[in-house]
């Protein structure tokens, strides 16, 4: 292997690790947050519903790139202006781009997936809820044991698609200096002035990751469909 090939391979491997960590972390946090977001959005209490509506609107109505910029440059600037945070031992962590990327991508996924969950919960026939009530189940019990499991089956294909979008979204973290697969490809491109090799290699990497995620979700969907 040539020197260039070795350099490219080592950089991209380091990048792909960060991409995978970022993706898995954000997918876990985002998908878990999505359910409370959906429940708050469907809540009858106005003080729960309106913040959820605003949250979903804000994250679905603006580009991910702007969200990343706003979080990293904007919020980062505000935090740096507060002396108690600026000189706290936590600052080295808060200064890095990594946690801002993590936060933004997780919240973004939570907003989109929350809307998917809301649709799924609303599309379950009313009879299910009424049957639960006639059995004397509490409201929480009906939600946990009756509605959410059925909503999960309905929502899973769309959630799979959203997670693919999250994987693609991690590529934007390179714009706020997180060194993941896209960032690694850009670095090699800038250092060696070769355009096509790093970009195509990164594309292949993302393609393989996407195939992996799609296969995983497909497997999960078939498993869930079989049980009933």
């Amino acid at each position, binding site marked *: 292997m040539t020197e260039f090939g070795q350099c490219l391979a080592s950089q991209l491997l380091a990048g792909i690790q960060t991409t995978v960590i970022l993706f898995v972390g954000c997918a876990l946090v985002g998908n878990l947050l999505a359910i409370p977001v959906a429940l708050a959005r469907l809540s009858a209490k106005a003080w729960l519903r309106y913040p959820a509506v605003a949250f979903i609107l804000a994250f679905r109505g603006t580009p991910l*790139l702007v969200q990343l*910029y*706003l979080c990293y440059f904007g919020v980062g600037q505000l935090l740096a202006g507060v002396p108690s945070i600026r000189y706290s031992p936590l600052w080295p962590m808060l200064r890095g781009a990594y946690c801002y990327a993590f936060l933004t991508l997780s919240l973004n996924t939570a907003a989109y997936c929350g809307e998917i969950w809301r649709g799924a919960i609303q599309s379950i026939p009313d009879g299910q809820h009424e049957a639960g009530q006639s059995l004397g189940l509490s409201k929480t019990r009906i939600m946990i044991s009756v509605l959410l499991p059925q909503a999960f089956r309905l929502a899973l294909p769309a959630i799979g698609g959203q997670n693919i979008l999250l994987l693609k979204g*991690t*590529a934007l973290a390179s714009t706020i200096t997180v060194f993941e697969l896209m960032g690694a490809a850009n670095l090699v491109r800038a250092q060696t002035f070769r355009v096509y090799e790093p970009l195509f290699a990164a*594309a292949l990497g993302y393609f393989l990751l*996407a195939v992996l995620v799609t296969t995983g979700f497909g497997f999960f969907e078939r498993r869930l469909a079989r049980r009933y």
Partner: protein
Amino acid sequence: MESIVSWLTLLGFGDKGWGDELLRGALLSVEISISAYVVGLALGLAGALAKLSKRRTAVFVAVAYTTIIRSIPDILIIFLVYYTATDAVRSVVTFTGLASEFQINGFVAATLSLGIVQGGYSTEVLRGAIAAIPRGQAEAAYALGLTRRQTFFLVTLPQMIPLALPGLGNLWLVVLKESSLVSLIGFTELVLAGKMAAGATRDYFLFYCAIAFVFLVMSSLSATLFHALETSTANTGRHR
């Protein structure tokens, strides 16, 4: 109070404000979104027809296209299209000897790269809409002696538009937000204009909030518009 006044000056028009730059950027964002949307729809229509055709190679090419677009980050595709397109055009131009130094127009490059990404998404939406029209419609048209082209434009297309409208609305919202990505290939639309303003004034939070707000307004307006369009066309062509 003072800070509010200084914010308003920064966002205002005139010498000290960046309002006019941001407004120009927002207009360019909308322009590029519209042209990329049109390019995407044309590509998507071709892709949808290819996917539904009987020719094996056409199906293969269309499936490969949508699979690649769906699994590779948009920004990577935009970079790839931008570099390949500019390189290809430049080599063609220098080869034919029309000009020794040639720079591809930023707007064209941005439209092309964004449109190719958008085409992949449009393919799926349009394919679904075409496939949802009963076969009998096309068969009836053939029985009446219409050619394939006439059948498509006079029978299939008018019926698929109401079916495709929710998907088309979503696609417009997607392309509006994706247009922010062309700032990364150096096209001065809203995000890059705001980034420059933020860098010059060091008021990052203010300017990124302003950009986010403009995008929020634009996407809310388009969502309302498409919703009105959907309700007004919902009943045509179905209840007869």
